[in-house]
C-alpha cells in the first residue's frame, strides 16, 4: 500500500469546518475530494508490484532457488532453468495487475473529473469533483450522485426535506428522507448561502453509515446535527429538484471510502490441501536431499577421495562432510521441480477458464433481466463441486417478491380459478363476479380504501402506486382491475373511482399495521356521511374480532382460507364495521389522548385501536400468491437429491417462511415431523431441541424424558424425514456457545431447516456455526444487503443480481439472476471444475515426480554429485512447454459426463462432497505412480544402454544419449498418461497433446542444431545428440519398452476399477439410456397453514396522516425507473478485491424491479 510511504498526519480528534472559508479549513489539511484507488503509477509500478509479488511464498522460494543457483559450488543447474519460469510467472501477474490498475486509474479519473457546482464567492461555478474542498457549499440536482459527505443546508422541497437513494451505499433501494437543519433552510433563497459562515464541529471520519454527530455553530447559536442531516457520498438525490450542502468529509474520508475495506480472501479446500501437500513435498525434498547428501558423504569418503587425482575437490571443500553439505543444496536445486512454479499459475489459469465458462453459459442467462451469470471470484470454482450446505435467503431469492392477487372468498363464495399467473396483473384472469352484488362491491371498496399506498399520476395519465409492501400493492391493483380504482389521497381524503364514478371519502383515521396487531384498519366517512371502519388482517387475529353473527360465514371462509393456504397462498381476512357518529367521537377522543401521551404511547394507541376493531362483519378473504422464482421447487428437489442440505434463513415471519417452505417443496406433508422451535428462554429452547433430537433418533416415537444430546455421529441412524423451523429469538439462544452443538446435531439431522425472523448477523452466525462444526463446504445465496454478512462468511457466496440492490451481488463470489441457475452452477460447473481440478492436480504431481525422481536414482550412479540426467533446456522447458498444455487443456475442457446427465443424476455430485477425487490418499497414489514411472524411466534405459551400441559400434552409454533417451521416454510416457486421463477429446486437446509432442521433438532438434552450437558452444553442447540418438532403433525399443512397463499396470488397474467397482459417473457415461429421476416432485396434500404475510414494518400511515406527504414529482418518478448503476462504485468496492478478475459489468443496468424493499411501483 502506498499509504505506507506517505506521512500520516496524527489522527483527527474532531473535525472543524467553517463554511465558505477555504483559508480557515486549509489549516487542518483535510483530505481533498480526489480519490485514489489505483495502486501504482508508471514509476512505482515495477518496484511496488515486484515487492508485492515476492510476498507470495512461492515466488520468494523460487527467488531463493535462483540465488542458490548463482553460487558456483552448488549450482547444479544453470540459473535460467529457474529464471525463465519465474520471469514468465512474474510478468504474467504483472501484466494482469497493470491492466487492473489501468482500469482503476480510468475509473478514478472518471469519478474525479465529474462536474459539480460549487458556490464560490457568491456564484455557482462548475468544478471537478476532485477540486471540491471541505467547507465548500455545493449544489446538487436531482438524480445526481452526491460528491462528498455533505451537510444538507437547503432543499428546494418543503420542510427542507430531500430524498436520497442509498443503494450504492448499503444496498437498500428504498428512498430515505433527509432534512436540513431548520435554521439553514429558512433563508428561502439559496443565494443567501453564499454568506453562510456557520462552523461545524463533528466527529472524525469513520465508517458508520447510520451515525453522525456534530454541532453547528451559527450566529452564536448551537444546533445539533445527526445523520438525518447528512447526505453521504455515493447516494443519489431523488425527487428533489436541488439542494445545497456543506462538504464535511471529502475523498478518502467519506463514509463510502471508509467502508470499502479489504474483502476477506477466500480459499478453497483444495487450495488448503494443496498447500499442505506442497509443504509435505518440501519435507520430502529435504529428505531426498539429506539421503543424497549422506550418500555423497559416504561416496566422497570411500571413492571420491581416491578419485582426487582426476578430480580434486573444489578449493573451499576440504573434507567430505562439507562436500555433502554442498551436495545437499545442489540436490535441492535439482529436485525443486517436484513443486514447479507453474503449478500455481496453471491452477489459476484453469480456474480462470472455468470462470469464463460460467460467464459464458447461456443457460445461466436470464433474458428477462438481461443478466448473465458472473463469476466474480475466479478462485473458488472447484469448491462449487463440493457444496454440502446451502443457506438461502427467501425473499427475492426463492421468491420473486411479486405478489399476485390470486383468489378471493367473498361472502362465502370463492372466486378465481387460475393458479398460475405469470404477471402481477390479474387482468388476464377470468373472474365471474356477480355484478352489482353489494358484498363484492364492499369487498373491493375495502381493498381500495384500506391501505397506505400512495399514488401519483404520471404525465401520460398513468397511475403509479407506491406501496410499502408488495402485498398491499397487489391488493390495490386487484381492486383497480375490478373497478375500484384508488386515484389519489390527501392527508384527509381518499379518492377512488368506483365503477367509473369518482367518489371521495373522508379519511378519519389510519390504524396502521404492526407486527403485533397483524392487521390494519382505516376509518372513513363516505360521501353520504356514514362512518365505516375497514379492516384487513391475519385470519387468526381478525376472525376473533368478528361479530358473533358471522359464525356461519366465518366457518365457510375459514374453509376457504385453509384451501388457499394449502395452495401456498398468503391469505388475509377482510372485515368492516359501521360506526355511529357517537362511537366515532368517543373513540376519536380517546385516540387523541393516547396520541398525546408521553409515556407508553405505542401501547396506549394499540389499546385504543384494539378497542374499536371489535364486532366487525366479515367480508371475505383474499389469497395472494407470493410468487416463487421460476423453477425453485425443481431446483431444490434436485439439489437435495444431490445430498445438499438447504437451509432457508429469512427475516420473514414463521408462517410466511413455512408457507414458502411448503410451496417450494422443502417441506412436505410426507415428512415425519416438522419441529418448530420458538422458545423464548434458554431452557425452553434447549428442551425443544432435545426432544426434537430424541424424537429423530427414536424413529419418530416421541420420548418423554429428555436424554442428553447424543454425539452427532449417531445422526446416521435416523429414519424418517424431519424438518426444523426455528425462530430468530430461539436461534439467538441456540447459537450460544453451550447449546450450539445441540442445535447443530438436531438441525443437521433434518432434511430441511428454516430459520425465520433472523437478523443479518444471525444469518452469518448460522453459516459460521456450520463451518465450525461440520467440515463441509457452505454456500450462501441471497439478494439483499441483509445477506451480505452470510455471503461473506460462507465458503461461497452467491448473489442474485439484476433485481435488488447491487450490494449482495457486489459482496458475492458468483452472481446470477435466478435461483434455479444454482443447480447448473453446482451440478454442472461446480462438478466439472472439481473433477477437472482433481484430475489436473493428480496428473501434475505425477508428472513432476516422474520427471524429478529420475535424478534421485541417477544420484546413486554419479557419486551423488548432483549431476542432472537431462539437458538443462529440457529441465527448463519440461514444465512450461512440453507438458503444460495437454494438462491445461484437460483441466479446462475435460468432461466425464455431459451436462444434462449431471442434472439427471444428481448423485453424481457426491464424490465432490466426500472429497473422493483428490485427497491425501489419491495424492500418495499419484506420487507412488510418479516414482514408479521414474524408476522405470531410469533403470530400463540404464540396463539397455549400458551395453548397447549404435550400429556403427559407438557405445550408447554416453551421458547425452542417455539424457535424450530418458527425456524422450519421459515425454512420451507422460503424454500417453495424459491421453489416458483425458476423458473428453476436443480439437483443442488433440492439438495440445500432439502439439506438445511435436514441439518436444522440434525444440530438441533445434536446440541440438549446429547453428546454436556455433554461437554458444558451451551452452549448447548437446549438439547432434538428438539426431544420433533418435535414429537408433535400440533407443526406440528402449522407449517403447519403458512406456509399456509404465502404462500397462495403470491401464490394468483402471480397467479393473471400471469393471469391478465402477463409479456412477463411469456407468452413466457408458450407458446413454435416460432415466429421468422422479425426485420428490410429488403433489402434496393440503394441511392448514394460516398464511398472513404483510409488511414487516409499519406502513406510511403516520406519514400520510401527519400531512407531511411525500412529494413525488412526476419527473422524479419517470427517472426512477431507469436508475443508473455507476460502475465506478463497483470498481471502488472491488478496490481491495485484487483477486477478482471479472471486469465490472454494470453499466446502464435497468435496476428497476419489484423490490423487496419497502417501496413498490405498480404501473397501470
Amino acid at each position: 500500500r502506498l499509504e505506507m510511504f506517505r506521512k500520516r498526519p496524527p489522527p483527527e480528534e474532531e473535525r472543524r469546518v467553517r463554511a465558505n472559508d477555504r483559508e480557515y479549513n486549509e489549516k487542518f489539511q483535510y483530505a481533498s475530494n480526489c480519490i485514489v484507488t489505483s495502486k501504482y503509477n508508471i514509476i512505482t509500478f515495477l518496484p511496488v508490484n515486484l515487492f508485492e509479488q515476492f510476498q507470495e511464498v512461492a515466488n520468494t522460494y523460487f527467488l531463493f532457488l535462483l540465488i542458490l543457483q548463482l553460487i558456483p559450488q552448488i549450482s547444479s543447474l544453470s540459473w535460467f532453468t529457474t529464471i525463465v519460469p519465474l520471469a514468465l510467472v512474474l510478468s504474467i501477474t504483472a501484466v494482469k495487475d497493470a491492466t487492473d490498475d489501468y482500469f482503476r486509474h480510468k475509473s478514478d479519473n472518471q469519478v474525479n473529473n465529474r462536474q459539480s457546482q460549487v458556490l464560490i464567492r457568491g456564484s455557482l461555478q462548475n468544478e471537478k469533483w476532485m477540486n471540491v474542498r471541505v467547507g465548500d457549499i455545493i449544489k446538487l440536482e436531482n438524480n445526481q450522485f452526491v460528491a462528498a459527505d455533505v451537510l444538507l443546508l437547503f432543499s428546494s422541497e418543503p420542510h427542507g426535506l430531500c430524498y436520497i437513494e442509498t443503494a450504492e451505499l448499503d444496498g437498500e433501494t428504498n428512498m430515505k428522507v433527509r432534512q436540513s437543519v431548520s435554521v439553514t433552510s429558512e433563508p428561502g433563497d439559496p443565494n443567501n448561502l453564499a454568506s453562510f459562515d456557520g462552523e461545524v464541529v463533528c466527529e472524525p471520519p469513520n465508517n458508520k453509515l447510520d451515525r453522525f454527530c456534530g454541532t453547528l455553530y451559527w450566529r452564536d447559536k448551537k444546533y445539533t446535527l445527526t445523520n438525518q442531516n447528512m447526505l453521504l457520498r455515493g447516494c443519489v438525490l431523488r425527487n428533489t429538484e436541488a439542494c445545497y450542502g456543506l462538504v464535511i468529509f471529502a475523498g478518502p474520508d467519506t463514509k463510502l471510502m471508509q467502508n470499502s475495506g479489504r474483502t476477506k480472501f477466500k480459499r478453497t479446500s483444495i487450495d488448503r490441501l494443496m498447500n499442505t501437500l506442497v509443504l509435505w513435498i518440501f519435507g520430502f525434498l529435504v529428505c531426498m536431499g539429506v539421503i543424497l547428501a549422506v550418500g555423497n558423504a559416504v561416496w566422497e569418503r570411500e571413492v571420491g577421495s581416491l578419485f582426487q587425482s582426476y578430480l580434486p575437490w573444489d578449493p573451499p571443500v576440504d573434507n567430505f562432510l562439507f562436500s555433502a553439505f554442498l551436495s545437499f543444496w545442489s540436490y535441492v536445486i535439482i529436485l525443486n521441480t517436484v513443486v514447479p512454479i507453474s503449478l500455481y499459475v496453471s491452477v489459476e489459469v484453469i480456474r480462470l477458464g472455468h470462470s469464463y465458462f460460467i460467464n459464458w453459459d447461456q443457460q445461466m442467462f436470464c433474458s428477462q433481466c438481461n443478466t448473465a451469470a458472473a463469476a466474480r471470484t475466479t478462485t473458488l470454482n472447484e469448491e462449487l463441486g463440493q457444496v454440502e450446505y446451502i443457506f438461502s435467503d427467501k425473499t427475492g431469492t426463492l421468491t420473486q417478491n411479486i405478489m399476485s392477487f390470486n383468489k378471493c372468498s367473498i361472502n362465502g363464495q370463492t372466486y378465481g380459478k387460475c393458479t398460475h399467473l405469470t404477471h402481477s396483473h390479474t387482468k388476464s384472469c377470468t373472474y365471474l363476479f356477480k355484478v352489482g352484488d353489494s358484498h363484492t362491491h364492499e369487498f373491493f371498496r375495502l381493498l381500495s380504501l384500506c391501505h397506505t399506498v400512495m399514488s401519483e399520476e404520471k404525465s401520460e395519465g398513468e397511475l403509479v402506486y407506491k406501496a410499502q409492501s408488495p402485498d398491499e400493492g397487489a391488493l390495490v391493483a386487484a381492486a383497480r382491475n375490478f373497478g375500484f380504482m384508488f386515484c389519489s389521497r390527501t392527508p384527509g381524503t381518499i379518492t377512488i373511482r368506483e365503477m367509473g364514478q369518482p367518489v371521495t371519502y373522508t379519511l378519519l383515521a389510519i390504524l396502521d399495521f404492526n407486527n403485533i396487531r397483524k392487521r390494519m384498519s382505516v376509518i372513513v366517512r363516505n360521501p353520504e356521511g356514514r362512518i365505516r371502519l375497514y379492516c384487513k388482517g391475519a385470519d387468526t387475529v381478525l376472525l376473533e374480532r368478528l361479530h358473533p353473527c358471522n359464525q356461519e360465514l366465518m366457518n365457510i371462509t375459514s374453509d376457504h382460507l385453509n384451501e388457499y393456504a394449502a395452495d401456498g397462498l398468503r391469505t388475509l381476512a377482510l372485515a368492516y364495521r359501521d360506526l355511529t357518529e357517537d362511537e366515532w367521537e368517543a373513540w376519536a377522543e380517546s385516540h387523541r389522548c393516547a396520541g398525546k401521551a408521553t409515556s407508553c404511547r405505542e401501547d396506549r394507541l394499540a389499546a385504543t385501536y384494539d378497542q374499536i376493531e371489535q364486532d366487525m362483519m366479515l367480508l371475505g378473504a383474499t389469497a395472494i400468491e407470493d410468487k416463487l422464482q421460476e423453477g425453485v421447487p425443481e431446483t431444490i428437489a434436485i439439489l437435495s437429491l444431490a445430498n445438499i442440505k438447504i437451509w432457508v434463513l429469512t427475516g420473514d415471519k414463521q408462517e410466511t417462511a413455512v408457507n414458502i417452505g411448503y410451496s417450494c417443496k422443502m417441506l412436505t406433508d410426507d415428512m415425519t415431523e416438522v419441529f418448530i422451535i420458538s422458545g423464548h428462554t434458554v431452557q425452553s429452547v434447549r428442551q425443544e431441541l432435545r426432544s426434537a433430537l430424541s424424537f429423530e433418533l427414536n424413529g419418530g416415537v416421541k420420548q418423554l424424558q429428555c436424554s442428553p444430546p447424543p454425539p452427532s455421529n449417531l445422526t446416521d441412524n435416523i429414519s424418517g424425514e424431519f424438518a426444523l423451523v426455528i425462530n430468530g429469538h430461539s436461534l439467538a439462544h441456540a447459537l450460544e456457545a453451550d447449546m450450539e452443538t445441540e442445535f447443530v446435531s438436531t438441525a443437521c439431522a433434518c432434511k430441511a431447516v428454516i430459520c425465520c425472523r433472523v437478523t443479518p448477523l444471525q444469518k452469518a452466525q448460522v453459516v459460521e456455526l456450520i463451518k465450525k462444526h461440520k467440515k463441509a463446504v457452505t454456500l450462501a445465496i441471497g439478494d439483499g444487503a441483509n445477506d451480505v454478512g452470510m455471503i461473506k462468511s460462507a465458503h461461497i457466496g452467491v448473489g442474485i443480481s439484476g433485481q435488488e440492490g447491487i450490494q449482495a451481488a457486489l459482496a458475492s463470489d458468483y452472481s446470477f439472476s435466478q435461483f434455479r441457475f444454482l443447480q447448473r452452477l453446482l451440478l454442472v460447473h461446480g462438478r466439472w471444475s472439481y473433477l477437472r481440478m482433481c484430475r489436473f492436480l493428480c496428473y501434475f504431481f505425477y508428472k513432476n515426480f516422474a520427471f524429478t525422481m529420475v535424478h534421485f536414482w541417477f544420484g546413486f550412479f554419479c557419486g551423488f554429485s548432483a549431476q542432472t540426467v537431462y539437458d538443462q533446456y529440457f529441465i527448463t522447458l519440461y514444465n512450461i512447454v512440453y507438458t503444460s498444455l495437454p494438462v491445461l487443456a484437460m483441466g479446462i475442457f475435460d468432461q466425464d459426463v455431459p451436462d444434462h446427465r449431471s442434472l439427471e443424476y444428481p448423485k453424481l455430485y457426491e464424490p465432490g462432497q466426500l472429497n473422493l477425487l483428490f485427497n491425501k490418499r489419491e495424492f500418495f497414489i499419484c506420487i507412488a505412480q510418479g516414482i514408479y514411472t521414474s524408476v522405470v524411466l531410469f533403470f530400463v534405459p540404464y540396463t539397455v544402454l549400458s551395453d548397447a551400441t549404435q550400429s556403427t559400434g559407438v557405445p550408447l552409454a554416453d551421458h547425452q544419449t542417455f539424457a535424450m533417451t530418458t527425456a524422450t521416454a519421459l515425454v512420451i510416457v507422460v503424454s500417453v498418461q495424459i491421453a489416458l486421463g483425458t476423458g473428453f477429446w476436443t480439437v483443442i486437446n488433440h492439438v495440445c497433446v500432439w502439439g506438445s509432442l511435436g514441439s518436444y521433438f522440434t525444440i530438441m532438434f533445434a536446440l541440438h542444431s549446429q547453428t546454436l552450437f556455433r554461437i554458444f558452444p558451451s551452452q549448447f553442447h548437446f549438439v547432434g545428440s538428438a539426431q544420433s540418438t533418435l535414429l537408433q532403433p535400440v533407443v526406440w525399443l528402449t522407449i517403447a519398452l519403458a512406456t509399456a512397463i509404465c502404462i500397462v499396470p495403470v491401464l490394468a488397474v483402471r480397467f479393473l476399477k471400471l469393471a469391478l467397482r465402477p463409479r456412477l459417473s463411469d456407468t452413466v457415461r457408458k450407458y446413454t439410456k435416460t432415466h429421468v429421476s422422479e425426485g420428490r416432485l410429488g403433489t402434496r396434500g393440503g394441511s392448514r397453514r394460516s398464511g398472513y404475510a404483510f409488511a414487516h414494518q409499519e406502513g406510511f400511515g403516520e406519514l400520510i396522516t401527519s400531512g407531511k406527504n411525500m412529494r413525488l414529482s412526476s419527473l422524479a418518478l419517470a427517472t426512477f425507473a431507469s436508475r443508473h448503476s455507476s460502475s465506478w462504485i463497483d470498481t471502488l468496492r472491488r478496490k481491495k478485491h485484487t483477486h477478482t478478475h471479472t471486469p465490472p459489468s454494470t453499466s446502464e443496468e435497468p435496476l428497476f424491479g419489484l423490490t423487496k424493499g419497502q417501496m413498490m411501483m405498480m404501473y397501470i
Partner: protein
Amino acid sequence: MGRAKRKPGPLARRPDNSAFKQQRLPAWSPMLTANTVLPFFYFMALICMLLGVWLLLTVQGTQEIKLDYTEAGTCDKCFEKRKNVSSAAESCICKVVFLVEKPFKGDVFFYYGLQNFHQNLRRYMDSRDDGQLVGRKSNLKEPSSYCEPFAKDQNGLPIAPCGAVANSFFNDSFTLTYYGSSGDPVKVPLLRTGITWYTDKNVKYRNPQIDNLTLAQVFEGTAKPLYWKKPVYELDPLDPTNNGFINDDLIVWMREAAFPNFKKLYGVLYHDKLFTDGLPAGNYSIDISYNFPVQYFQGRKEVVLTTLTWFGGQNYFLPIAYLVTSSLILLIAVILTVAWWKFGKKGKNMEE
C-alpha cells in the same frame, strides 16, 4: 463489451451461442471397455513376444569376448608399476593372450572398458571448455574457469585441451596379434578413425584455424594437460589429420559416459587378407602399452571384442526384458479377462 453493444434489446448481454463457450465442442470420449482393453492387452503381449523372440535370435548371432587385463597376463607388473607415483612416467608394455574358439563373422569392434571410473560426476563433466574444443582462439589462450584446476599449468600457460575430462584421457594403447594355424604372429589391422559421432568429428571438435600455420604452431603457447605424455597435436603420429582436438581417441574420451562402468570404441577391424570375413578362430594376443593407472580408484580395465547386429552389440537384456514384459502383460490380460468375466458389473449402480 464491445460485442455486447452491437446486439441491442433484452438479449444484449446474452453470451454467444458458440460450441466453445457453451462447452459443447464435438469431442471423442473414449472409454476403457472390455472390448477395447482386453484385445489391446493380448495384442501388446503378442507384439512384445514377437519383438523379444526376434531380438533374442538376433542377439544370439553376435559374439563377444571380454578380457579384464588390469592384472592379467604380464600386466601385473605394470599394474604394480603404476601404483608408484615415482615410476608413473616410465613406459610399460605387457601382453595378454586369449583364444577365440569360434570365428567372429562380419564387422568386429574393439573396445576398451573402464570400471568404477566416474565420468559422470557433475564437476568432472563441467570441467571442459567447449569453446576451446571447437577451436576458438580466445578460449585456447584463455580457457574457461570451469576447467579449474586444469586450466593453466604451473607456469601459467593455458592447457589445451583444458579441464578434468581431457586431463584424465585414457592413454593405454593396444596392438592385437593373431597367431594363425602356422603360429606366425599377424598383426590384426584396426581402423582407428571413424569411431566417433559424425557431429562430434565435424562440428563439435575443431582445431583452431590459423592461416598457413602447422598444428604445432597453432598450439604454441599452450601446455599439454598435466597427465599427458604427448601434446594434443601429436596424439596420432601416423595420421597428421587425426591430431589436435579432432583426434578420434580424444573425441571418444570426451564424450562422457553416463555410468561408472563403460566401454569406449577403440577401433574397428579392417577387412584385409586374413580378416576379410572377420576374426578367424585361433590364438590372439594383445600388446598393451599400459599407462592408465586404475588402482587409485579401485578400477578395472578391460578390452572387449564383439560383433554387431543392427541394434548394437551382445545385449541380452533387451530381448529378455521384452519377453518378460510380454508374459507379464499376458498374465495381466488373463487376470483381467477372468475378473471381467466373473465379477464385472454392468451398470447396476445406475439403478441405485
